[in-house]
């Protein structure tokens, strides 16, 4: 052995490696860094609403927006695109306030873009808080970051100054944006939820959408015999489509009080018979799925429906628009309500979940919050809403704004379903936004139930346990709703 104590180069290489190793050791658990430089200094208190404070209110300008105050609008550029903002609402705002400069920001990552700005106190004036990476509205409200929208809902409508804005929108719209009993979120898009199918295919095969779960099973057999997967959802990122169905069915059995009780974390709400019956019925339908759907994402499964490989798909009314580029000629989207589970269901088969979705918020500490309110009021005008429907293909909460527009097959079916449902509306779940941990658990357990790893009873018990945990967690602010 050549005992030459190592050449200098040799030592350097080893020591280098070791040093890099130690550096990595210090830099390795980088996750601890995620909240970097977060609570450093208090944000500059100077940036609050000073510049736009003073301007007289008038019939045309009920909030007293300062004419020259610039407006910054942040739009979630997802399924709805952002041309409805750049080509409809922003020009309308510019028309109302010609001296105002509008800054338009489009992003797919609302939270990543805005969370640091909220922490730093430099916030925009209006935010389309949507998408997978939306910010937690309840948390924002709790920190005093959201502007209360009562002033907006009570303002005179642009189309008919004798009426308030709140009277121009679909019932339940204002209520859907309540946090701790006050309106903070303007939900704009009118959505209905149910099972989507290709009306052309069903007509060709002589299938009718099922009215009861028994019929649903019989239909599933018939569809399966044709080599088509009867029912599907995507477990990898869209199991909430399936839990919506479970909760809608449960609400049809017991009535909307169930959804209120679930939201209000009432003891034992998840273990009630209605939830058990619904979960058991849907688990039966789950058996007709292909196991592999658990590892696929929503667009992959949706595209299979467009290819005629999947018959019924649970989703909301944005589906048609989302799949536009994939939908083949002759494919006709149609919506059917969730089938009745028992003969004694409180709500009829025709009952449908309809809700206002896609939240828009005005930050309380914006530089031009009045401008943000005025922008929302413009969105809620007939002209603004109509333009939105034209650009995005979605119907808004503004009643009658889409009248006379030529509707797509899906939207036409949606409006027919709404007419059939009448007053029989299944309401929404607020816990999805209020208690994210509960929602995450529900996603997990829904996959486990629908792909046959747990029984309906286990599903209910696990969810009740998660709800109890949320209820007992002092660090989560509890919400309540009565409507």
């Amino acid at each position, binding site marked *: 052995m050549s005992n030459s104590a190592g050449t200098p180069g040799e030592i350097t290489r080893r020591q280098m490696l070791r040093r890099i190793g130690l550096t990595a050791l210090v830099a390795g658990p980088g996750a601890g860094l995620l909240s970097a430089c977060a609570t450093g200094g208090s944000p500059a208190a100077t940036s609050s609403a000073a510049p736009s404070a003073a301007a007289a209110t008038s019939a045309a300008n009920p909030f007293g927006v300062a004419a020259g105050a610039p407006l910054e609008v942040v739009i979630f550029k997802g399924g709805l695109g952002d041309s409805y903002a750049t080509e409809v609402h922003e020009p309308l705002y510019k028309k109302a306030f010609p001296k105002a400069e509008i800054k338009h920001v489009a992003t797919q990552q609302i939270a990543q873009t805005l969370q640091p700005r909220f922490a730093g106190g430099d916030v925009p004036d209006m935010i389309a808080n949507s998408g997978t990476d939306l910010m937690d509205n309840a948390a924002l409200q709790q920190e005093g970051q959201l502007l209360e929208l009562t002033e907006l809902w009570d303002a005179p409508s642009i189309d008919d100054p004798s009426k308030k804005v709140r009277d121009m929108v679909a019932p339940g719209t204002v209520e859907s944006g309540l946090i701790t009993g006050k309106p903070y979120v303007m939900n704009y898009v009118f959505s209905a939820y149910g099972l989507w199918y290709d009306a052309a295919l069903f007509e060709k095969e002589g299938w009718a959408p099922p009215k009861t779960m028994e019929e649903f099973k019989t239909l599933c057999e018939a569809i399966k015999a044709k080599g088509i997967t009867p029912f599907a959802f995507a477990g990898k990122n869209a199991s909430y489509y399936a839990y919506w169905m479970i909760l809608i069915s449960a609400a049809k059995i017991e009535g909307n009080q169930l959804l209120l009780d679930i939201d209000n974390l009432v003891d034992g709400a998840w273990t009630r018979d209605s939830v058990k019956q619904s979960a058991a019925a849907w688990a039966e339908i789950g058996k007709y799925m292909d196991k592999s759907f*658990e590892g696929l994402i929503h667009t992959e499964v949706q595209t299979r429906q467009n290819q005629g490989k999947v018959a019924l798909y649970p989703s909301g009314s944005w589906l048609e628009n989302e799949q536009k580029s994939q939908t083949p000629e002759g494919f006709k989207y149609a919506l059917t309500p969730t089938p009745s589970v028992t003969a004694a269901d409180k709500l009829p088969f025709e009952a449908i979940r309809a809700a206002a979705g896609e939240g828009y918020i005005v930050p309380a500490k914006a530089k031009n919050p009045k401008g943000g309110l005025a922008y929302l009021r413009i969105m809620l005008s007939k002209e603004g809403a109509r333009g939105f429907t034209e650009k995005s293909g979605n119907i808004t909460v503004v009643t009658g704004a889409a009248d006379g527009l030529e509707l797509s097959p899906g939207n036409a079916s949606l409006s027919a379903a709404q007419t059939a449902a009448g007053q029989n509306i299944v309401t929404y779940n607020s816990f999805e936004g209020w208690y994210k941990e509960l929602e995450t658990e529900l996603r997990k357990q829904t996959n486990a139930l629908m792909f046959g790893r747990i029984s309906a009873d286990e599903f209910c018990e696990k969810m009740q346990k998660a709800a109890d945990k949320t209820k007992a967690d002092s660090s989560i602010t509890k919400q309540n709703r009565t409507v």
Partner: protein
Amino acid sequence: MRHGKYPFIVGFLFAPVVLYVVFVISPYIQAFYIALTNWKGISANPQFIGLENFTRLFDDEVFWAAVRHHGVLLLVVPLATIAIALFFSFLLNLSGGQKGGQMTGLLGSKFYRVVFFLPQVLAVAIVGVLFQAIYRPDETGVINSLLAKVGVEPVGWLIEPDLALWAIMGVMVWQAVGFYVVLFSAGMSSIPRDVFEAAALDGAGRFTLFFKITLPLLWDTMQVAWVYLGIAAFDAFALVQVLSVDRGGPDNATTVLPLEIWRTAFNFSKFGYASAMGVALFFMTITFAALTLRVTRRERIEF
């Protein structure tokens, strides 16, 4: 000349040290503080709540599932990676016998070296997307379509709770092997060739050469590799995020701490609790690294 030495060194060190303190050390210190608060990530005035976040960790089912997974990762990923990398680098460098007094690798070893290193060059997100296609659970997946050719039913690589974590570990090993092949190759080429010559003269075969000569003389390098891979086993965030069912599923079967930290902070708006998890992870990593360096310490062979 000599009196100018220190300002010269300080001049060089100043900028990196400042950067390191600002972007690495200070966030760490902040994370320790945030872990003791109920900060929600939005306002600038978190409340101090003592050790509540840490006591909460004790009965957090998901946290312990993640810790268990790190235990499995810690055993499997370094062992498998080091074993495979050692085998390959031995084949590449030393197994071809002697040529002109120089140990050589197999025929075409330069080509293989490039092939092995390739995954290391790919960003981990790209590797994730690649393996989405490879592991796709239906018959359109790369592996499953091959299996279908021999009449095997599609395997749910990432959707079977018992299989998912192993599938992800497979990706981690696949990606890491190339780098350690290069690292061990460097180590092997620094072993003096007279050692091999002497052993070969004494009639040692490839097997003996590997276990009696190469392995002991590579010990330092392997120790470093072990620490590196261990730290990688405490991460796995990106692959789990991209590949697993609903980020950590099915049924928590693949979740890891960095993922839960991310989810707790950015989905649940519990930055305080997430920081507590981060602090726990920090101590686990430190403990692991210190233990590894201590336990594997051996008498160094000088040559």
